[in-house]
């Protein structure tokens, strides 16, 4: 397989381009996704290739962006809708939660809603409380939605292709602070199935389960800890719904210790769900210490960058948590 070194952002763009070349019913809609290229430049150049018919700028109207995507999906197209910041999903919630997610079930299984709602999530850009949230737990809670949260260029490309080909509404949360991070990605067509976690680092002493940007911070923490003789295993679930419980349980049985790291607020966060899954599994008997959650504090994301840093887990927080538990 020939590999190319590209950024996360380029990987997202390539996935969309390749799928749009492959299937003419795939199109992109969203705010400023055309000539402007999207708020983070993800779709830059796409309107030139596919035209305004398939790369559609919309008015600032998230309710109708998500609702029209659902309407177009149930009538035969495969929309990719971009929500400029994941925070704006609040405005699209009825269309997503009460409509798209439930249509198939409510209609007795006689409809499919193949749509992808892409949105950059997370803090770290000094953009304050309305442009920095991590709201994945809300979406995980809704039956009918799939929730994807890739952390690397390789994962984001393979998973976005799967999302576009999936016949269900998929919420695709991009990790905005790694948009410019490079990684190796095959030049050939490939897809990554949903529900398969990736062991980003193999270790034997402690399992660190992390999502989004926290995967990178956990890997950094693992390198620091390696020098102290602590061997950390880092697991990235990649998709939250469906969830690969098996890989996690296997890892916890091996290490006997689990730390869950996410950027979202601890209260009601996905980490609680992960902990409960482990407690209910056969891994419970192998736990040598209480499960620990390293997560965002329960406050809105502040503007001041020093405050912002203190609101969400940093590498040191993960290192310290591991030291406490080992």
């Amino acid at each position: 397989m020939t590999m190319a070194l590209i950024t996360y952002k380029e990987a997202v763009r390539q996935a969309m381009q390749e799928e749009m070349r492959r299937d003419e019913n795939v199109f992109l809609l969203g705010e400023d996704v055309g000539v402007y290229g999207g708020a983070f430049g993800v779709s830059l150049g796409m309107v030139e290739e596919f035209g305004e018919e398939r790369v559609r700028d919309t008015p600032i109207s998230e309710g109708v962006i998500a609702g029209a995507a659902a309407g177009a999906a149930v009538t035969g197209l495969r929309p990719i809708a971009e929500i400029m910041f994941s925070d704006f999903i609040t405005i699209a919630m009825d269309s997503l939660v009460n409509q798209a997610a439930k249509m198939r079930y409510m209609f007795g299984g006689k409809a499919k809603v193949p749509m992808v709602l892409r949105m950059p999530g997370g803090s770290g850009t000094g953009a304050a409380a309305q442009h920095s949230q991590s709201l994945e737990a809300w979406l995980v809670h809704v039956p009918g939605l799939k929730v994807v949260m890739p952390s690397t260029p390789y994962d984001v490309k393979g998973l976005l292709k799967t999302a576009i080909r999936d016949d269900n509404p998929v919420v695709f949360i991009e990790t905005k602070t790694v948009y410019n991070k490079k990684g190796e990605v095959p030049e050939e067509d490939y897809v990554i199935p949903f529900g398969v976690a990736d062991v980003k680092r193999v270790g034997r002493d402690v399992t660190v389960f992390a999502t989004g940007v926290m995967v990178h911070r956990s890997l950094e923490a693992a390198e620091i800890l390696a020098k102290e003789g602590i061997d950390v295993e880092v697991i990235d679930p990649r998709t939250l719904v469906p969830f690969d419980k098996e890989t996690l349980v296997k890892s916890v049985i091996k290490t006997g210790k689990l730390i869950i790291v996410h950027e979202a607020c601890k209260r009601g966060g996905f980490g609680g769900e992960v902990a409960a899954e482990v407690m209910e599994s056969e891994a419970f008997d192998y736990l040598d210490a209480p499960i620990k959650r390293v997560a965002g504090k329960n406050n809105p994301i502040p503007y001041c960058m020093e405050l912002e840093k203190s609101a969400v887990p940093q590498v040191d927080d993960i290192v310290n948590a591991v030291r406490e538990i080992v």
Partner: protein
Amino acid sequence: MGDVTKEQLLDFYKTMLTIRKFEDKAAELFAAGRLPGFVHLYSGEEAVATGVCASLTNKDYITSTHRGHGHLIAKGGQVDKMMAELFAKVTGYCKGRGGSMHIADVDLGILGANGIVGAGQPIAVGAAFANQYLKNDAVSVCFFGDAASNRGTFHEALNLASVWKLPVIFVCENNRFGISMNQKDHMNIVDVSQRAISYGIPGVTIDGNDVAAVYETAKDAISRARKGEGPSLIECKTWRHYGHFQGDAGLYKDAQEQEEWLKKDPILKLEEKLKVLKFAKDTELKEIQQQIQGQIDAAVEFAENSPEPSPEDVLADVYAP
């Protein structure tokens, strides 16, 4: 009157009467405690769904509302499968998963009744976009009430439909109430159609109890949409005979106003017209009534004799394979 023929008027009559008798039966069943949840009855508004859907085919889409039985029947929904859905049976349109507020059949172009006021508008816009994108000459029609035009989705949807010149017709059934709130208290305009001006699309107000007027107006708007001339807003002034849902006593309604509107019953109006134009005699109308009553009774029998959904299937169809 335009070119509405005798056959068309008689067809309209049959459709409107089917809706009315379906609703009368649903009211009776609900009052007897035989249907779960609640039902929002369309009685009094039959001319709107009937007049609009007369110009649609199965390739065209509609989005409906919580008060959706009329739209579904007018769009070709079968009363037996609808009744079975109200009874929560597996033979219902949604296998007993949706109920009155979620009946749908994508093959018939019915993208669902909807339990959320104002939620159909973005969906209708998306379906209209699909039609435009696939260049298939089909249109979508969004039915909604006066109060739904206060939702943000209404404004987002009309605006997007206008700037993208989508083949969608927004049909406001102004029955004067948002649940209990009188239109004069929930908006500061008399005609919802005025709102079209803000989006640069045609908007008209018509008598929603005159099926021929609804038919003519909708036919023009649908034909414009099919030709790529963009969306329209049609406001049909009408009145719901029952309360918001079956069981609501309608205390907020003025008794005299209710009485006046009952005299303007769209079905009575059509019966008079059919007789004045000598298109049908009393005996022929009675025959039609009996025939439709028979269909409704058969639908209830079908529903009653249908199997219940099985609890082990509760997780089926949450996700497409």
